[in-house]
């Protein structure tokens, strides 16, 4: 699978907010902020995240656990549970702000125009309900449909995600299916209404490597055929490298670097992106030693106004105690760093 270059690639300019768009994007997230109330006070877990998703595009969001990438996904569809709360920003689907919608109107969009696939297929299907129940309720949630038709569509949906003997599987309980098959059921549910956007929160992490690859390529094909944009959230840069169009690297609730996937991976500017690359065997540029990033990310409660990565960064200076502004080093790229790596230095080292 070779990386497909984003159609509006390097030729397009950045918008004033640092977004990247040719035609109007299907989904635009602007200045999103989500906070959690903890014993130590109110902690921002997502802190001013911006990105846009074009029709049919695959955007990867990469970050370590705790970087706020999953919370970003939940925030988009209003699925953040207390003590968490979305406190700012906008999530525009076309020109509707999802954050401003009343619960019923948001429910009408969930699963129909924007749907989601979760990390652990063991847990994302209700263990005590049959597969057909869980598919058909998703069909019924967005339009009335007769029993017979619903059943036929459910079987069809399973067949499309490559499940053999769908009729039989429909009558199964989730625990009777393998992990990969369960995730296929989840994907089938997400695809039911041919949504404009699917948000996939590490959907392959819990699966075997071979099944991972299968599901990746199937999802990519399905989305390409229906023009569905895919927001792929993962901690695994190699997954993103293999099939995303663009990538956003998240650290401590902020996007620290973004851009077309081949450019960001080929020539990272942020020291954190570099560090991530060097810790992935397949991606560490030729001859470079595998090097884990030293230290651990700070707990969200310990963050201050400065660059959150500076405690682990070899290039950090006193300036880093001030938050770096977002810059646009190249068309379609964003960066938040006072001391970015430059291309030449990177290639030589």
């Amino acid at each position: 699978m070779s990386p497909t270059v984003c159609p509006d690639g390097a030729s397009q300019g950045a918008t004033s907010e640092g977004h990247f768009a040719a035609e109007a994007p299907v989904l635009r997230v602007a200045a999103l902020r989500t906070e959690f109330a903890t014993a130590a006070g109110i902690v921002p877990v997502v802190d001013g995240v911006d990105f846009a998703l074009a029709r049919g595009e695959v955007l990867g969001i990469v970050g370590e656990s705790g970087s706020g990438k999953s919370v970003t996904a939940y925030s988009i569809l209003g699925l953040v549970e207390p003590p968490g709360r979305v406190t700012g920003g906008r999530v525009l689907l076309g020109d509707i702000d999802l954050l401003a919608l009343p619960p019923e109107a948001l429910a009408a969009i969930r699963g129909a125009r924007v749907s989601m696939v979760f990390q652990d297929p063991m847990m994302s299907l209700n263990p005590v309900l049959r597969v057909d129940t869980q598919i058909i309720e998703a069909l019924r949630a967005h339009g009335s449909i007769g029993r017979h038709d619903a059943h036929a569509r459910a079987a069809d949906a399973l067949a499309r995600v490559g499940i053999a003997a769908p009729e039989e599987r429909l009558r199964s309980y989730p625990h009777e299916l393998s992990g990969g098959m369960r995730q296929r059921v989840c994907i089938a549910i997400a695809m039911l209404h041919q949504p404009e956007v699917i948000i996939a929160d590490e959907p392959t992490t819990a699966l075997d490597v071979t099944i991972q690859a299968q599901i990746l390529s199937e999802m990519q094909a399905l989305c390409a055929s229906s023009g569905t944009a895919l927001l792929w959230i993962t901690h695994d840069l190699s997954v993103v490298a293999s099939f995303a169009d663009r990538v956003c690297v998240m650290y401590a609730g902020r996007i620290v670097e973004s851009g077309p996937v081949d450019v960001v991976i080929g020539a990272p500017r942020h020291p954190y992106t570099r560090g991530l690359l060097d810790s992935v065997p397949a991606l560490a540029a030729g001859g470079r030693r595998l090097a884990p990033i030293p230290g651990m990310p700070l707990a969200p409660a310990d963050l201050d106004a400065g660059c959150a990565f500076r405690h682990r960064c070899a290039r950090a200076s006193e300036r880093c105690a001030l938050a770096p502004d977002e810059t646009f080093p190249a068309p379609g790229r964003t960066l938040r760093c006072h001391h970015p790596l430059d291309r030449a230095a990177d290639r030589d080292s």
Partner: protein
Amino acid sequence: MVKLIAGRILQGFGVLVAVSLIAFFGIYAIGDPTSLLVDPQATQQDVEQVRHNLGLDQPMWRQYGLFVGSLASGDFGRSFATHEPAMRMILERLPATLELALAAIVIAVVAGVPAGLAAGTHPGSRLDRVVMTASILGFSLPTFWVGLMLILVFAVNLGWLPSFGRGELGSWLGIHSSLFTLDGLRHILLPALNLALFPMSLVARLTRSGAREALELDFVRFARAKGISERRVVFVHILKYISVPIVTMIGMQLGLLVAFAIVTESVFSWPGTGKLLIESIGRLDRPVVVAYLLVIVSIFVLLNLLTDLVYLTLDPRVRFDAGAHAE
């Protein structure tokens, strides 16, 4: 699965044997009931005759053998007071107790589950606190006192409902019960409410904690992400998921309620087994007390078995892997 059930049946049988032992040694062997049975003016010879007739002159182990033997043939002895077979007295009263326990458990579920769901899905809310405080009251207030207050308010002051008896019985499918007539329902309402107080608190608490846990699970989030209504998320996804421990608990409670009914039956003069037990204790009517114990314990055992079966049908996972479900 068959093995599991067979094991439970065996275990239940063991409990019954243990209770028969305790009942025998505890109740028959302590003291000599002859003095209660014969005329105080009887001669020594008469007393010996009665002792011989009752088998009391036999060694202890033979007495137990005779006791068990007669149990097996359904003979629990005759009441000292009425000379009726003790078992028949119990069985005659049993329907009244069972209908009361059943009505109470229905009330407990109908009120407790929604209260627990509402509290559990709104953690920390005012509603949550009200439900929790009410359940502490339900646990700590003595049942008989609440029964008295129900009578005082609804029967004496307001005059809405009768305060004693079963009222008119209806019959359906050969079962005679208060539940089948309007008058009977009016009679059962207060005692059932009284008996329901404790299981209601329990059901509400269990439902609340189950719902709180379920809310954190991914399948609830996925269900919401599918765009289905919040009502369906709560009443289908969460409720079905937490129903397994709730049903288990209800099954065990139903057995306990048959015993707890002793108090409620006495307060509301409900002609069930509990009231009979109190009367028999007052009259030192040992055979009836023993028969009561054995019947009640059999009901416990039977209900536990039934609960296991329901558990198996409710949770598809245990059919494959018993004990896999984390409660």
